């Protein structure tokens, strides 16, 4: 039978080609002057669940009330459908005026001239941490404005550490101390707990480690910024831990899917983004989890940065650039909007919004963590290269083979570089 749904996956490719063809024309957005009787209609679209729909509708209602000459019409779909729809619309020239956006798609659409440069259309960017803005920038144009941020952290469960008699991390540690901590936790965990998952399989921790060594993962023209030696050093960092109780074995991790080992109470710590807090608490049932910064051999350079968990962008073809800018400004800067979303989008990125929002419980903990690392923050990396998702998945997959002992570090490094160079060539 002819099943149309089977074609979904292949559409992206077709769409990409068509998008390139049709992305040539660019019309300048003139300000549509709306009146109260005949307001300018602004289309805004986002992905998300019921909860986000309710919060966003509330924010839109508030905006419409404050700006009677603009009428924002909101629409939403799920994550996967969202990008299929955007790809088709981009090809057909009908992107909505304002869109919620994800970092991984920013460079792709910016390169095809689908997005509006928001540097000087009236969005107040002075309220943002200077280090955060580069993450929405492609070729020196501010295509995306972050709504909210995530930061990388090492999570641990204080109750489990107490149970097995391991001291809590202090928050400043070198990689040697980190490894000692994992080894001790693995040994004292005595089969019940392991230290952590293999941290060298996490792309972002590798990225941060590179930054600690003053290397950027990607050059500004989208090539790899590190060498095979760097990756070899990184994967060798955990060589003496693999196969010991310090690190949970890959087959156990697979068995636990879709839950994480940390959420399933099999490890005492985990390295990931700070927005996982609520999920981990719910999964593990722990009463409290704590976060500390990543280890670094250079105590003054932790390599940490804030990553936008979401951005706001406008279509390059919008006829109402002024209204679009006004709405984006409202969504990222208005304290009332922060109060509506709380941390459901991530920690509010702009200072006005963060200061204007009251946080409690887990939210307060995540905000406090991001405040505590603010002195270590350096410029966020530019939006990832096209095809980055594949690189990240490959990174984890090859590292798992390493963990299984199927390949040596040298082979693993060669494998990853081969596939990375392929991806970069394809998307250049």
């Amino acid at each position: 039978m002819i099943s149309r749904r089977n074609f979904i996956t292949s559409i992206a490719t077709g769409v990409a080609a068509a998008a390139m063809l049709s992305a040539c024309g660019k019309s300048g957005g003139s300000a549509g002057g709306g009146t109260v009787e005949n307001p300018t209609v602004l289309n805004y679209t986002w992905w998300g669940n019921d909860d986000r729909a309710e919060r966003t509708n509330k924010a839109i209602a508030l905006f419409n009330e404050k700006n009677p000459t603009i009428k924002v019409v909101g629409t939403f779909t799920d994550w996967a459908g969202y990008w299929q729809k955007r790809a088709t619309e981009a090809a057909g020239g009908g992107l909505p005026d304002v869109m919620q956006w994800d970092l991984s798609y920013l460079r792709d659409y910016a390169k095809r001239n689908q997005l509006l440069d928001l540097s000087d259309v009236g969005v107040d960017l002075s309220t943002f941490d200077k280090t955060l803005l580069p993450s929405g920038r492609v070729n020196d144009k501010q295509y995306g404005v972050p709504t909210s941020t995530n930061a990388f952290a090492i999570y641990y469960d204080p109750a489990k550490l107490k149970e097995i008699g391991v001291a809590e991390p202090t928050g400043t540690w070198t990689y040697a101390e980190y490894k000692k901590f994992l080894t001790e936790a693995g040994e004292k965990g005595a089969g019940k707990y392991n230290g952590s998952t293999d941290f060298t399989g996490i792309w972002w921790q590798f990225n941060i480690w590179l930054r600690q060594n003053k290397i950027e993962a990607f050059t500004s023209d989208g090539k790899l910024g590190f060498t095979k030696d760097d990756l070899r050093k990184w994967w060798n960092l955990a060589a003496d831990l693999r196969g010991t109780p310090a690190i949970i074995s890959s087959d156990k991790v697979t068995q636990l899917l879709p839950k994480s080992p940390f959420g399933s109470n099999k490890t005492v710590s985990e390295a990931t983004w700070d927005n996982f807090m609520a999920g981990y608490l719910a999964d593990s049932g722990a009463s409290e989890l704590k976060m500390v910064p990543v280890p670094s051999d250079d105590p003054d350079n932790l390599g940490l940065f804030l990553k936008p968990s979401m951005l706001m962008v406008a279509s390059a073809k919008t006829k109402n650039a002024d209204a679009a800018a006004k709405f984006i400004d409202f969504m990222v800067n208005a304290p009332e909007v922060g109060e509506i979303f709380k941390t459901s989008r991530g920690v509010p990125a702009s200072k006005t919004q963060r200061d204007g929002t009251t946080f409690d419980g887990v939210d307060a903990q995540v905000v406090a963590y991001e405040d505590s690392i603010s002195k270590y923050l350096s410029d966020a990396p530019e939006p990832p290269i096209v095809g980055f998702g594949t690189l990240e998945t490959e990174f984890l997959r090859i590292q798992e083979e390493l963990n299984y002992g199927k390949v040596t570090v040298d082979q693993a490094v060669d494998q990853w570089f081969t596939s990375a160079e392929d991806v970069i060539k394809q998307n250049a």
Partner: protein
Amino acid sequence: MGRSLKTLAFHGVSLILIAVVLYPAVWMIASSFKPSSEIVGNAAIWSENFSFDNFIKAMDGIGGISTLQFFGNSLFLAVASVIGVVFSSTLTAYAFTRINFPGRKFFFTMMVMTLLLPFHVIIIPQYIVFQQVGLVDTYVPLLLGKFLGAEAFFVFLMVQFMRNLPKELDEAARIDGAGHIRIFCSIMLPLMKPSIITASIFAFIWSWNDFLGPLLYLNTPDKYPLPLALRLFVDQTQSSDYGAMIAMSVLALLPVLLFFLIFQRHIVEGVSTQGLKG
């Protein structure tokens, strides 16, 4: 003795196969009564925490739009598709089989060739056309083709069926003074019942399950049919409500199942009586 053993073995194997085939469906129905945390990564059917919470949450709707609205939209699209497909494909098939117009073979070949055209080849051009004429965010792009006989599969199905109907029947009618319209309505349509029912079932189910079409052409959430609404319960970037999604899947399955059960009898009936009358 040997024979009854064989029968026993046959039935045993059949039952095991049925269990394997039906397990996902049973699991889905059972899971709709479980709390979300017990659904993922759990293949067991029985749960201690039996409740209707998922259904209550599913019926609540999304973003202020009630689930009944999604049901209504899906039903409207499916029924309109069935009407469109039956109307246009029988008429087109009649023209192809009973009227000898110039270029008949050529057009028939062209129509069959559209079957070979992958959907994603036409998706962008089609979108651009509908966007230019301002029909995006209406049901027109989803239904227009069905009313214009653009669904080649159904036209082909009807043509094949109609070719098997004896020409003597319409010749007799013609002698009695019937024109094309009369022949079509009074002779062909009643005889085509089995294939019309088959086409209706497919048209209904395909429209009911269609995700991509509505995704691309509908913007406002209150126009969404069920498949789009279902996906909103599972959001990778936030917490996913698997319970509500599965409950809604079960609800969404019911109309299709009913539709099939009611009309399935007619397919068999149609095929068996066809031989007697022919």
